[in-house]
């Protein structure tokens, strides 16, 4: 077993452990942290597959951004996971069936003698090819249409997020220094003349 394989098993073991903890952890914050660990180790696995750019983007986007949102949500909403878990046994059979199906499928993929991507299709990895550059070249030529579509999907997401969560500017009171300076005594104090009242 060479070093690469060792690293693969090491990372996979952590990944599986983290994945299990995500669904078994009692504290939702712990679950999110294990999810982060899972993403981190998957990024490691992708690196082993030489998918350098994607591995980095996985860390940057998922760990650096998406999980931050997750963490915000579980930290601030005080979700009680035990309540959510009550349906666990009810749904276990269905979940198990799907899980077994997927496991069988993976087994077939791995075990299949004929299963291989048609060889001619795999672009040879040049010795010094930077896969960011390769991706960039593809993204700006052949994949221009999905590239722009992705922007539109992001636009939909922005509009939807703002329309659904934002409830107009908050009515907070704050001081306007300019107005404070501009104010004159006459604006604040009204001097009135009135007859002296007699004390009785």
């Amino acid at each position, binding site marked *: 077993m060479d070093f690469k394989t060792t690293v693969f098993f090491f990372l996979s073991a952590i990944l599986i452990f983290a994945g299990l903890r995500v669904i078994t952890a009692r504290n939702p914050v712990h679950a999110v942290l294990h999810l982060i660990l899972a993403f981190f180790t998957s990024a490691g696995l992708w690196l082993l597959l030489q998918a350098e750019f994607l591995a980095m983007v996985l860390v*940057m986007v998922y760990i650096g951004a998406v999980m931050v*949102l997750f963490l*915000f949500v579980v930290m601030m909403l005080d979700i009680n996971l035990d309540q959510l878990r009550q349906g666990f046994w009810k749904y276990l059979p269905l979940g198990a069936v799907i899980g077994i199906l997927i496991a069988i499928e993976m087994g077939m993929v791995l075990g299949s003698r004929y299963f291989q991507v048609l060889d001619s299709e795999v672009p040879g990895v040049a010795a010094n090819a930077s896969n960011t550059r390769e991706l960039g070249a593809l993204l700006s*030529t052949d994949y221009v249409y999905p590239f722009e579509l992705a*922007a539109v999907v*992001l*636009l939909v997401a922005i*509009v939807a997020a*703002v329309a659904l969560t934002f409830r107009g500017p908050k009515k907070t009171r704050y001081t306007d220094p300019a107005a404070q300076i501009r104010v004159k005594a006459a604006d604040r104090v009204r001097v009135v003349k009135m007859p002296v009242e007699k004390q009785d």
Partner: protein
Amino acid sequence: MLENYFPILMFILVGLAIGVLPVLMGWLLAPSRPDSEKLSPYECGFEAFEDARMKFDVRYYLIAIIFILFDLEIAFLFPWATVFKDIVASEPMRFFGFIEVAIFLTIILVGDAYAWAKGALDWE
């Protein structure tokens, strides 16, 4: 390519170790005489009367969501930016290579302008 990543793996481990070591040493060397006053969370003279973990303003979520979108956008721009010099250097691609990203950015900026005008980026 992979062998270049080996030092990084080690560096991450060393980084974690450097985080763990001082705390461990602190634990071993420092005294530990806890009492209930010392262990109470910091408050301004009162006993804390509720859990500190409370619901927060929706703004924080909104900022986080918009951040994800921008982060994704940057991730999309990176590959293009690395080949932009080649794009500029090649005659047939020159114009197209820039315009496509200009369109990409404009689409997102429309969304940004919308969020801005709605006041979603205002803090208070």
